């Protein structure tokens, strides 16, 4: 039986408004379904409700707006179906455009911040270690849990917003210490340590591990000691693409895994998988049949949204080559990072180099790319996995460096392996 506090009961009884009551009813029914004993306080929320999936998505949010709903904790928003900063990029129908725009706007009316990013953790919403939060969007969930050591279950449509409107979440799953220990050990034998071009191996490892573990918690041992935050971002996003992964540990790198033993909570390792570079090359090959020399129509990177550090790498690579891409080169990022780029005087440089920046949304969920017939290259495991079904493209899968070299020649270029 779910135990409620006096405040929970007030919310449920409508003393804090119709919207909060609706949110609490959904939360209580969901918590009962999950078998939670009670609810806990959350400190912030990230909402993935801005993608338009039909009338019901909009009806739910409109009902909350009409009921005077306001978020109780700082709340950021995930991507929507539109780039509100660059609306001219949208190539879909007018009806969809207006419904999608209203959905985004209604969330803002509830008090959510208009961040529209899948990487809120690289903006201003960066939860602290041990903080209880309610996040949606698979890559953001896995980053917050694994890299920051904050605590969230894998929330999604409706639940995330109900948590934000009440400041409460079911006390179970990854909110609880004992459920956060590793379950499968991946021993990396010859993982590339040389930084140039190794980003693709983090994505490949994530796809490989996610498929193997399903909903269990993977532990990686043998990643380079200088593994960057963006590389962990790529790893987590890919894990959460092929598996229902909400948390991973990287021994010596992520905060809950100073040692292998700590990652497993001092218990015996239930299962060990050895992963060689050849395994990861096979994962890469399985995603794409593109061969060196194949004609390329575009490049898309920034899934999850590009960070400032990744823009610096991109600028460095373009600078090194002293040439411009001769095909469309899309980078998805947040409006927050866009402003930072502008402040730093880097935006002009990117535009002059022929880079198209897409904000608030992502190239694989909405019609923004000019060309979707033919081969498109990405360094994102998530993009490579979803884009063929979502927008009907063929994918070439390579590192950021390979993406840049390929864009300069309009054909697939792979580093020697």
């Amino acid at each position: 039986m779910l135990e409620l506090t006096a405040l929970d009961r007030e919310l449920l009884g409508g003393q804090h408004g119709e919207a909060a009551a609706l949110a609490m009813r959904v939360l209580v029914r969901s918590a009962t379904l999950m078998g939670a004993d009670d609810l806990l306080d959350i400190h912030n929320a990230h909402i993935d409700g801005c993608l338009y999936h039909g009338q019901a998505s909009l009806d739910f949010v409109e009902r909350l707006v009409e009921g005077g709903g306001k978020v109780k904790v700082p709340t950021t928003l995930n991507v929507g179906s539109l780039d509100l900063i660059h609306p001219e990029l949208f190539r879909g129908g007018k009806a969809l455009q207006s419904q999608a725009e209203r959905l985004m706007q209604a969330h803002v009316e509830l008090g959510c911040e208009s961040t529209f990013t899948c990487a809120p953790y690289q903006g201003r919403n960066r939860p602290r270690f041990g903080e209880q939060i309610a996040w949606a969007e698979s890559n953001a969930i896995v980053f917050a849990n694994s890299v920051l050591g904050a605590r969230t279950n894998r929330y999604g449509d409706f639940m995330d917003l109900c948590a934000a409107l009440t400041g409460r979440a079911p006390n179970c799953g990854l909110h609880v210490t004992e459920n956060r220990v590793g379950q499968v050990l991946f021993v990396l034998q010859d993982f590339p340590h040389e930084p140039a071009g190794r980003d693709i191996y983090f994505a490949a490892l994530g796809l490989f591990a996610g498929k193997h573990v399903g909903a269990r918690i993977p532990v990686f041992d043998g990643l380079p000691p200088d593994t960057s935050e963006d590389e962990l971002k790529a790893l987590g996003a890919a894990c959460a693409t092929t598996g229902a992964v909400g948390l991973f540990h990287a021994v010596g790198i992520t905060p809950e895994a100073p040692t292998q033993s700590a990652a497993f909570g001092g218990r015996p390792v239930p299962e060990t998988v050895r992963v060689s570079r050849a395994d990861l090359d096979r994962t890469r090959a399985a995603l794409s049949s593109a061969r060196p020399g194949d004609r390329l129509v575009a490049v898309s990177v920034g899934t999850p949204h590009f960070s400032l550090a990744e823009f610096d790498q991109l600028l460095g690579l373009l600078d090194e080559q002293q040439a411009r891409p001769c095909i469309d080169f899309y980078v998805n990022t947040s409006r927050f990072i866009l402003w930072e780029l502008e402040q730093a005087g880097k935006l002009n440089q990117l535009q002059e180099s022929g880079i198209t920046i897409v904000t608030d949304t992502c190239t694989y969920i909405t019609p923004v790319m000019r060309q979707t017939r033919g081969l498109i290259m990405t360094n994102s495991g998530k993009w490579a996995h979803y884009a063929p079904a979502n927008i009907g493209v063929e994918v070439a899968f390579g590192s950021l460096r390979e993406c840049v070299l390929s864009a300069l020649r309009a054909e697939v270029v792979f580093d020697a392996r």
Partner: protein
Amino acid sequence: MPADTTRAHWPAAAVVTGQGSGQALLLEQPLSFWGGYDAARGCIVETRHPQHGANLAGRVMLMASAKGSSSSSSVLAEAIRNGTGPTAIIMRERDLIVGLGCIVASELYACHVPVVVVSSDDWRELLARARDAQGRWHVRAPESGVGEVRLVG
């Protein structure tokens, strides 16, 4: 032990409250509603799914477990709103994403599509019966949490 072919009543845990009935539609594999079900037309569009092309409208859906994106909750709620969703759902494993779709549809549109969960043994029996019985299935999921599945005819 061979399945009991005369039994027509099974206990079930009520996961989402409501009552519903109809002919069975058995999904032989998990379905992700997002990307797998067209809620506008009422049609399973995941091409590799064994029930590709099937319409859930008016049917009691049997699906052992769920898979895929959390956006499936929205698509299921939209299908229920649009009359292209099932009238009841029977599962072997409890699933928040499926449950949420039904919870939200019941809150927004007062369409109470029940979700119940049965034991593994009962699931095997239900599978066998759903494959060859022609009858009408009734699912009851009351507030008490103690629900039931009945096969009539």
